[in-house]
């Protein structure tokens, strides 16, 4: 092989190694410098002051036990649903009742969650609060809306073809 070509390939490989090393070291350093606080994202993303953060933290700490309690209730109800469904091939009246109760519990938990988001948004500066609320609705309810939208699109398409 041509000597110049070998040298150029070596230089390119060395350049790639230098770039990759620099990239990974910087990436790792940048990721490590961030704290492990659950609320750190709120401070950075919504540019909150210490006073804003104190209000938000108080709301967050008040909400967490309620959230944990609801999660425990939902987990227990899910276990009941599994037990009621058993290994049968049809949905019994008891299983249907348990599914309804599970849905109600989830709805209560979601309502409580949205109420918390509203309270947190009101603890922020107005512009940031609106942005936070919109972002949280999108992140938590958005997936349901996407699924429902895709289902309605699919149903509409089927009606159109029939």
């Amino acid at each position, binding site marked *: 092989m041509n000597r110049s070509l070998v040298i150029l390939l070596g230089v390119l490989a060395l350049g790639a190694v230098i*770039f990759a090393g620099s*990239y990974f070291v910087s990436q790792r350093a940048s990721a490590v410098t961030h704290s492990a606080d659950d609320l750190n*994202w709120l401070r950075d993303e919504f540019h909150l002051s210490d006073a804003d953060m104190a209000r938000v933290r108080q709301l967050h700490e008040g909400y967490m036990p309620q959230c944990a309690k609801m999660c425990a209730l939902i987990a227990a109800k899910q276990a009941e649903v599994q037990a009621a469904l058993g290994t049968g091939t049809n949905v019994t009246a008891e299983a249907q009742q348990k599914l309804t109760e599970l849905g109600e519990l989830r709805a209560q938990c979601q309502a409580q*969650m949205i109420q*918390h988001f509203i309270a947190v948004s009101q603890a922020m500066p107005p512009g940031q609060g609106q942005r936070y609320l919109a972002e949280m609705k999108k992140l938590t309810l958005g997936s349901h809306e996407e699924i429902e939208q895709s289902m309605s699109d699919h149903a509409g398409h089927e009606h159109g073809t029939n």
Partner: protein
Amino acid sequence: MNPDDTKFSQVLRAARPSPSLPPRFQENVWRRIEDAEAPAKSGSWLDALTALVLRPRFAYATVAMLVLAGAFLGTYQGAQTARHNEQARYLAAVAPDSLR
């Protein structure tokens, strides 16, 4: 000098005639001298590129540029990853998976 020696020299010179020079002999000699003194020319663009890459100033500048570009992109990407992880951590705390 002995007159006999002079005569002897003339006889010797006549016995060894010098050949005539080829055409454009002097011009060719000068061209070869100039070629020998000129810096060596590279054979192809690959050789020229290699010579450029191996120049210390170019090599240092390239290494510095690669380090800076890697550090900049790595820092940006690391910050994006950290931000995404923090958002996921907050969401996991306030909105359990069963509600999303």
